[in-house]
C-alpha cells in the first residue's frame, strides 16, 4: 500500500521549517511555512491534502519527483513559486490557489496536469518551457503583473477553458510555442489578451472569447498562427497584426471593437470568412506598404536576423531574412469573402469592388505615409468579393 509509505505530517499550527530535502513519499496537511527552498527528489511523491495552507518566505518548492496537490493554497513574500522539473503526467495540481510569487508555477519540460487553479498577483502565473507538454485546463489567471500564462521554447501544452482577467501586461504569451490545443478560453480586461510573437509561433487558436481588452490578440514579428472561430467583442483593438506577421484569420466574429483588425508594418494576413459587425472601424492599415517593404523591409530587419548580441536588443533566436520576407507584394491586403454586416453589405452593393468602403481605412483614405523623409503609398484592402450573409455560427 502506497499510503503506508507516506509520512504523515499533521501540524495544527504554523511551523517554521528549515531547508528541506524530501527524499521519501510525504504527505503535507494543515498550515506550514518555509523560509528556505524545499526540494522533492526524483522518484519521490509529495502529496498535499485539501485545505492545506503553505507559506513561503524568499523560497520555492521545487519538484523533480511527483507532486499531487488538491485544494491547497500557496502564498508567501518574495517567494519564487513552484518549480516542476520534468515531472510527468502523474504530477497533478488541481483546485489550488497560488498567489504572490515571482512565477506561480514554472514548468521545465515534462507533462504535468494543471487544472482548476487560480493564479493571482504573481509576476508570471504559469511559465511553461523546455518542450513542456501536459495540460492547463479550467484555470483562472487573475491580475498577474506581467503575464498570466507564458508558453515558450517549443512547448506544446494544451490550454483549454481557462480565464485570463485583468492581467496587467499579457493574459497569455506564446513565444516559439505550439500548443496542441488552445481553445475555449476567455480573455477579459487585459492590456493585451493574447500575444503570439516571433517566427516559429504558428499555433491554431480556436473558439476563444476576447472582451474588453485593450488589444484582444496581437500577432507580432513574423508569427503565422491560424485564428479560427474566435469572438472578439468590445476591445479597443480586436486583432493587431504587426511587423511582418501573416496569420490566417478565418471564421471569427469581430464585433463592436474600436478597430476590428489593425494591420501594420509589412504584414500580409489572409482575412476571410469572418463576420465584422458594429466596429468603429472594421479594418485599418497603418504604416503598411509593399513599396516600403520592398525598399526598406530587409534592411530594417537586418539587425534582428544577423546580430547575436543580446545587448543590442537583437539576440532573439536566429531567423533568416528568407523566413521573414513577404512572398507576395502587390500593394494589397487580402480580405475577401467576409461579411461586413447588413449596413456594410448595402454600402458595398452601391460602391462596388473598386469603391472606398467607409468601414475600411487604407490607401483609398490616406494615399501615403512618411518614413525617414520619404513618402510611401499605403496599401489597399482587396475587399471583394464579399459575403451577403453571415458566415460564422457564433452566438450573437
Amino acid at each position, binding site marked *: 500500500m502506497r499510503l503506508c509509505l507516506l509520512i504523515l505530517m499533521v501540524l495544527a499550527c504554523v511551523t517554521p521549517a528549515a531547508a528541506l530535502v524530501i527524499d521519501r513519499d510525504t504527505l503535507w496537511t494543515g498550515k506550514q511555512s518555509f523560509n528556505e527552498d524545499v526540494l522533492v527528489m526524483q522518484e519521490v511523491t509529495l502529496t498535499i491534502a485539501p485545505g492545506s495552507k503553505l507559506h513561503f518566505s524568499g523560497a520555492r518548492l521545487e519538484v523533480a519527483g511527483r507532486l499531487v496537490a488538491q485544494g491547497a493554497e500557496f502564498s508567501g513574500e518574495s517567494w519564487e513559486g513552484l518549480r516542476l522539473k520534468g515531472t510527468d503526467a502523474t504530477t497533478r495540481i488541481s483546485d489550488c490557489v497560488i498567489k504572490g510569487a515571482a512565477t506561480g508555477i514554472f514548468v521545465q519540460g515534462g507533462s504535468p496536469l494543471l487544472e482548476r487553479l487560480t493564479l493571482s498577483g504573481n509576476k*508570471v502565473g504559469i511559465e511553461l518551457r523546455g518542450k513542456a507538454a501536459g495540460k492547463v485546463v479550467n484555470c483562472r489567471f487573475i491580475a498577474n503583473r*506581467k503575464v498570466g500564462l507564458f508558453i515558450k521554447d517549443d512547448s506544446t501544452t494544451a490550454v483549454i477553458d481557462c480565464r485570463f482577467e485583468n492581467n496587467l501586461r499579457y493574459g497569455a504569451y506564446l*513565444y516559439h510555442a505550439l500548443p496542441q490545443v488552445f481553445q475555449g478560453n476567455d480573455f477579459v480586461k487585459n492590456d493585451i489578451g493574447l*500575444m503570439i510573437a516571433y517566427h516559429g509561433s504558428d499555433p491554431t487558436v480556436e473558439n476563444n472569447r476576447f472582451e474588453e481588452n485593450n488589444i484582444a490578440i496581437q500577432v507580432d514579428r513574423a508569427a503565422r498562427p491560424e485564428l479560427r472561430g474566435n469572438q472578439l467583442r468590445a476591445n479597443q483593438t480586436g486583432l493587431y497584426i504587426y511587423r511582418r506577421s501573416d496569420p490566417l484569420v478565418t471564421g471569427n466574429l469581430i464585433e463592436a471593437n474600436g478597430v476590428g483588425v489593425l494591420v501594420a508594418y509589412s504584414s500580409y494576413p489572409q482575412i476571410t470568412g469572418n463576420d465584422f459587425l458594429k466596429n468603429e472601424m472594421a479594418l485599418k492599415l497603418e504604416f503598411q506598404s509593399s513599396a516600403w517593404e520592398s525598399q526598406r523591409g530587409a534592411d530594417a530587419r537586418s539587425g534582428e536576423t544577423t546580430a*547575436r548580441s543580446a545587448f543590442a*536588443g537583437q539576440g532573439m533566436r536566429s531567423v533568416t531574412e528568407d523566413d521573414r520576407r513577404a512572398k507576395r507584394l502587390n500593394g494589397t491586403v487580402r480580405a475577401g469573402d467576409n461579411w461586413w454586416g447588413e449596413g456594410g453589405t448595402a454600402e458595398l452593393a452601391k460602391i462596388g469592388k473598386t469603391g472606398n468602403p467607409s468601414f475600411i481605412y487604407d490607401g483609398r483614405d490616406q494615399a501615403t505615409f512618411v518614413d525617414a523623409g520619404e513618402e510611401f503609398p499605403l496599401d489597399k484592402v482587396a475587399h471583394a468579393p464579399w459575403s451577403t450573409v453571415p458566415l460564422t455560427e457564433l452566438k450573437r
Partner: protein
Amino acid sequence: MDLHAKRQADGVFARTDTVLHGQVVDADDLPVSEVYVFAYLDSRMVGKPVHMSVPTGGDGQFEMFLSDGGAYYIGARSAFGGPLEPGEWVGTFDGEPDHKVIVKQGTNEDLGTIVVKEFW
C-alpha cells in the same frame, strides 16, 4: 593559464581586490532585482563574458569582482547565455558610448547606474 582563465577556475564570484560596483535600475530609476552584470573583453559583447556578478537583490546593487585591471565592456541582463527572450531585462553601461570602462588594478570603481528595460 592567463588571469581570466584562472579566474574562471577559481570561481567567477570569488572576491578580488579589483571591483566594479553600481546599481541596476529601470527607466523610472527604480532598482531592478535578479539581473546579472557581465564584463566582456570584446566590444561586440558576444560569446562568454570574462566576469559576471551575482544577480542583483531588491536594491538593484551589484558588485563584480575582476581578475585584473583593463578595458571591459559592460552589459546586464536577466539570464546568462542563450538568446534574449521576452520578459528579460537587458541594458548596458552607458557612461561611454561603446559601453567601455577602464579599470585600474586594485581599485573599487563606481559605475553608477545601469539602466535596463524589459524586452518583449
